[in-house]
């Protein structure tokens, strides 16, 4: 009897010559074409612009002693009870797949939460899909509903992924400008001006990253009217909903006639400080959610089990800690707003998310120049507004999810920088 080792060697021996001979067979037969991996990449992907933030990220990473106001996530670690719950189930060996839709308990908690907080009534069995962050939900939605050439209306400045995701799904992104004069709210007029017969989807992402703008009920109503008149579907990215500081967040899905034409998207990243868990969900009309689940089951299977366990805990017992974090953001919001206004920079009062979007037009620099020079000269990182669409030019995004003393120091450094320019 020969051991395993002998068998393996024999196998290897018979395998190797075959491989070599196959290679040498092919050479004379094949044409003179050279294999170029880059040539494999589809023209659509080749034409996608790289994220405007990437270059800046490298620059900041190479600089020492930087205070960063350029981070788009909470400065809190996930509350301990949520981490502990996830670890508990990990220890118990809950490491298998879950239902494609997400764990039933989690979907039930999500349904209760959406009803409790936003007066939205979804059936956990087939109107809620648990996803890998809102990012996946947005991608699924585009792939589910877009035909080649369908137009996606995207109010800008906005988060960086809507445009590329729409393009990848065969759609055509159409920017709808929002303006500082309107506190970066979407207006019905601006929306109407962008409509064409091919308009199919409106992306609504409020509270907004990067502007911090919110849409109140009275702002949403005229938008809902346009949406109804023109038979649009709304993809409502409400990831910052809990981070609304004046009054309560209103979901457009709760407006009359909008429930059936809205996909509500939300998640755990911002409200519960759970960015790295990659857990989100979407809720909407059953036929669309079911179709989205079809793609999701082939592409993703299910959201990570550990994250789903953490999500259940967050929704069941996480609200007191969440409220504490929100109060803390609100305090820092006021602090930073006062700071920017005392610098003489125009800044509207953002009422949601954790960003401030001051204008830097009076310095005469482009937003990219401003951000680069501020980094080099004063070691403060902010994100140029142009990274969020052309209409973001002339603004910078500053995140106030940073330690109060860092915010103070950063404002002082920005003061020095700006005073040299004005």
């Amino acid at each position, binding site marked *: 009897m020969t051991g395993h080792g002998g068998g393996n060697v024999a196998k290897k021996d018979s395998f190797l010559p075959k491989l070599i001979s196959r290679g040498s067979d092919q050479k004379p037969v094949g044409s003179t074409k050279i294999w170029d991996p880059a040539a494999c990449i589809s023209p659509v992907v080749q034409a996608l612009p790289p994220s405007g933030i990437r270059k800046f990220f490298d620059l*900041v990473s190479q600089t020492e002693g930087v205070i960063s106001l*350029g981070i788009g996530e909470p400065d809190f670690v996930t509350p301990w009870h949520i981490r502990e719950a996830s670890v508990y189930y990990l220890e118990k060996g809950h490491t298998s797949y879950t239902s494609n839709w997400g764990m039933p308990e989690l979907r039930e908690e999500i349904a209760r939460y959406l009803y409790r907080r936003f007066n939205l009534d979804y059936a956990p069995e087939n109107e809620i899909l648990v996803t890998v962050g809102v990012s996946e939900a947005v991608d699924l939605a585009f792939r589910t509903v877009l035909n080649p050439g369908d137009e996606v209306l995207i109010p800008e400045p906005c*988060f960086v992924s809507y445009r590329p995701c729409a393009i990848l799904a065969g759609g055509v992104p159409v920017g709808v400008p929002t303006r500082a004069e309107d506190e970066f709210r979407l207006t019905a007029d601006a929306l109407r001006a962008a409509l064409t017969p091919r308009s199919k989807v409106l992306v609504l992402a409020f509270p907004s990253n990067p502007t911090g703008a919110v849409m109140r009920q009275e702002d949403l109503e005229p938008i809902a009217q346009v949406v109804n008149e023109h038979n649009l579907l709304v993809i409502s990215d409400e990831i910052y909903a809990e981070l609304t500081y004046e009054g309560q967040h209103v979901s457009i899905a709760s407006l009359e006639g909008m429930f059936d034409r809205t996909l509500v998207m939300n998640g755990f990243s911002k409200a519960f400080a759970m960015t790295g868990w990659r857990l989100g969900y979407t809720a909407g009309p059953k036929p669309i959610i079911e179709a989205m689940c079809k793609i999701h089951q082939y592409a993703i299977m299910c959201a990570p089990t550990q994250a789903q366990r953490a999500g259940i805990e967050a929704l069941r017992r996480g609200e007191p800690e969440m409220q504490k974090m929100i109060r803390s953001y609100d305090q820092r919001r006021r602090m930073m707003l006062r700071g920017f206004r005392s610098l003489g920079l125009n800044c509207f009062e953002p009422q949601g998310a954790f960003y401030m979007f001051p204008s830097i037009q009076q310095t005469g620099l482009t937003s990219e120049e401003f951000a680069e020079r501020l980094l080099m000269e004063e070691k403060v990182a902010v*994100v140029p507004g142009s990274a969020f669409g052309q209409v973001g030019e002339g603004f910078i995004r500053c995140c106030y999810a940073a330690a109060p003393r860092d915010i103070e120091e950063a404002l002082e450094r920005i003061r020095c920088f700006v005073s040299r320019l004005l």
Partner: protein
Amino acid sequence: MREILELLEQDGRIRPEEIAVRLDLDPGEVKRVLRQLEKEKVVLGYKTLVNWDRVGGNGVTAVIEVRVIPEREVGFEKVAERIYRFPQVKSVYLMSGTYDLLVTIEGKNMKEVAFFVAEKLATLEHVQGTTTHFVLKKYKQDGVIFENNEEDFRLVVTP
């Protein structure tokens, strides 16, 4: 007012102007409220939380369970007062359960604390008995973890 107290409890060094900015109040109003809170002994002091172990220690700490026979009319108050007057006594709490007062004492060394308990505490009238526990290590105090090794793992710039 509660929000002002919460901010101060987190950071005793926070300036009234900063409180005003964060809570959207007038700085003069914040200063007035602070004076009032101090006057009414709601705010009793502003202290620094020190991890003495990092600089070679600062003596020993002991918690002592004290069983007391309450006095007619004044209950535990008189005994508690006799105990908390001693400067080496850092805290005194009236407790439910198997003992009555929980006393924290700081001293140069174990011997000093032990003598204090034997001579001053145990001998007090109405004190029935004591149990002394020495603190070996402080992990967390007043909500602050002493050796917190949770860093900021976030990337420097994210969308």
